[in-house]
């Protein structure tokens, strides 16, 4: 199995690691960098629990190989707010009970962060479209939609 050296910046920290060509980006983030906030919920790219920002765009990190991220800037859920603080979205998720078990939450927050970065004032339909790639099995999305609206100042 071929090994490659890759360099990435995750949440502002630079890492250089040897990885197998076949290693998925999500396993690199979780297992090699020990950033376990990014989760795995399916094998098929459907659930979005592994969503991270890659050079500013939301991607499902189980659908990329680690080697494809070479040179990229990555933001995971751990990088959404400074230590000891919550981002407006994180705060809104808690206030509106937009999470129960919390397993989909990191991916959902990253997708919502990306959505608001592209469209600071989305309609309900646009919010639902924005999180269409993220599955939540606990909330029925009702309060997630409310929280994103609230974080967008609506």
């Amino acid at each position: 199995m071929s090994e490659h050296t890759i360099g990435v910046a995750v949440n502002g920290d630079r890492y250089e690691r040897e990885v197998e060509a076949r290693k998925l980006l999500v396993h690199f983030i979780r297992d090699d960098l020990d950033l376990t906030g990014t989760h795995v919920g399916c094998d098929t790219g459907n659930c979005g629990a592994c969503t991270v920002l890659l050079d500013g765009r939301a991607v499902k990190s189980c659908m990329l190989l680690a080697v494809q991220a070479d040179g990229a800037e990555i933001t995971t859920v751990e990088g959404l707010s400074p230590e000891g603080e919550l981002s407006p979205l994180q705060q809104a998720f808690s206030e509106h009970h937009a999470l129960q078990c919390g397993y989909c939450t990191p991916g959902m927050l990253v997708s919502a962060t990306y959505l608001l970065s592209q469209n600071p004032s989305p309609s309900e339909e646009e919010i639902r479209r924005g999180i269409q790639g993220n599955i939540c099995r606990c909330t029925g999305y009702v309060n997630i939609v409310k929280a994103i609206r609230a974080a967008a100042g609506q």
Partner: protein
Amino acid sequence: MSETTVTPTQVELEVGYAGKSIPRKEDQRLVKGEGVFADDLKRHGMGYVHFVRSPYAHARIVSVDVSQAEALEGVYGTLTPDEVAELTDPFFELTTPPGSQIKDYALAVGRVRHIGEPVVAVVAATRELARDAADLVEVEYDPLDVIVDARRAQDDDAPIIHEDAGTNVVWSGIFDWGDIDGALKAADRVVKIEELHFDRFASTPLECSVALVEYERATGQFTLYCNHQMPGVAAIWMGPALRVPLDKLRFVTHDIGGGFGNKITTHTYLTACCLLARKLKRPIQWTEWRTDQHMANAHGNERWFHDIEVAVQNDGTMLGFKVKAIDDCGAFPRYEPLGCIIWAQVTPGLYRWRNIRVDFTQVVTNKSPVAPNRGYSRMQQLWLTERICDIVAHELGLDPVEVRKKNYVRADEMPYETPNGCVYDSGDYARCLDIALELIDYEGVRARQEAGSGKLIGIGIGSTLDSGTNNFGQSTLLNPELQFSGNNEVATIKLDIFGEIVLTLGTVPQGQGHETVAAQVAADILGVSPDQIHVRPGHDSYWNSHAGFSGTYASQFAVTGLEAVKGATEKLSLEIRRLAGAVLGGADPDDIVLEGGFAKRKDNPETALPFMACGAIVNANNAVLPPDVRDVTLNCRYVYVPPFELPDKERKFGNLTLTYATQIHACVVEIDPETGDVELVDYAAVDDCGIRIHPQIVEGQVHGATVHAIGAALYETFAYDEYGQLLTSNFYDYHVPHALDLPEIKTGHIESPSPFSSLGTKGMGEGGGAAIHAICAAIQDALRRAGKPAIVNDSHNPPERVWRMIQNPEETATLVEVTAQ
């Protein structure tokens, strides 16, 4: 001792946290990605497991060869069926002979009985290597005939899945309450329904099953860091199978990514991991793949209802019904046959029917085993009662709303004893229905239906009960030899040296917010803020804060969990007040009040002892203690035991659950007549779970349960082909609702306090599948309004089935016959 007496600064204390939607304690870590889920854990030198799984639904295992896999560099070892057969005993079966002769092991021994059944386990240094090595394992199979359709499992020529049992029947029995034959004779009409089918689905938690298992050779101790949601029961299965006492099985959970019952029967996998940890002398890590979870872990029970006969008066009053039920539990019973009795908690649904006969049979098939999926077994029964209501109403030309109201148990009849001895504690079903109808603008939608449009518009109601706090004595109605009854839950609370209040629960939450709700209840008793109460996340057998039935399942936390918290905290309160009374000049505990972290004399609030001093005295300065309070430990454990009795085995009669929360849902659908596509255009869920400690969490549970049921009604099905191949083994084919699939869900509530819990609470969260019933009802309503005499005879209605009902309504209409007498 005057030096420990201080004058408190005046604290502006907010009293009464119970009933308020305070921010959840769990959220801070979970929104930061700092939760600790089982797959987050790592150990030095751990090996990753990959299971080699059966590609056949039913086959004899001819040979197993692991030599090539073991030779691969980086592979630590394997576990084979022969080793499992030698090193373990089959898991305990709950049913009676001959079903109890079924042999269920951690790996397939001799035969495979469903697609994806684990046959060999391979352990390697990385996940990827373990998968590579699994490909090198050679298993030779001799395929056997397959049973996919439970209705064929008792045929003379049906293949026997478990030869040790010699039958495919797991359990069979007749439940007969009242006088159904008399009622059918006396009724104005008899409505006969030939067949209804409740489909197979599962709530599929987003986090799959996970374990990290360590074995300590010196003590023979296994530690299982995992996401099992009912470790007490896992231990009862695993101890005897592994031939170890229960104290050698330490379960540790932390954050769990959803459970919904699907994490109750993972003991087969956990046992394999234990064997591997012991054999390979290293920590073993197992994370189930999504496809594995869908193929071979925990489906919901599929059920057929045959030869239903309903005794009906011309005004829509129903006197009762009889039915033959066939339950399909898949290849192994595991938690079954408990599903053969759990439905009886809600035998008549919400209705005043006094005469009911159920001929119930459970069979095995070559499909995934089942587990108690959210709404377990009651959901199927409630769907039957709701289908009966709508079919009777439509066949008699009556309004389904009026038929429900005529037959609902009335608020003034509470507490109400059902024909089989269950006691519905409180509720007002008709009022909940009125609220639900108002939320969807019932009159307005009826007017739109009259006006007509291109779409077929339908209104449906789903009425359900969420029975909570099981009396495990109901298991003796299935198998009189079983030694299970009652229920219990534990909480432990201590006041430590620096004034820390630490609360330990026996429950194993998976997102239900127990840390927060438990802290609210304890805070009110101790006169502090919930922030000052540290509730330990998860479960650890070493905390000794659990009992045989501990766990989070069957809608019971608000009763069993909170009663335990309340009991433990009241004990601690009394100890603090006794201690403070003794220290503060010999006051009676009743003359001490707890406020703002101080124990104060009521007659002189300035004379007070801070909690910190209490903790310090007892733990580190106890020579100063007066003799009469030297028994105070400030570490209080309480076991809550509900007031149950053993049910009557002969009559199959007794109170099977303590509380009944009500859910009345109403929805509006629009069906495209060209495609059969069902759009849910409005949805309302009204809930009554008694006193709500945290209304926002309750509403969140209502949303979640509703959407699980919407998924089951319209999108989610575990479909098998005739060879027993699963056709929906991942989230592409098994479509769970996404944000765009759903309307806004409107909620309403009333609070009918339970007379049987000291807080007036009722367990809730499962919701009885109300949305399945409501959507089936709405589809049938839309068809009937459009002049199609079809009945909805399946719980799962994808567009092609709805299209068929539109095109050929006779296909299901002929399943119903009404006889006037």
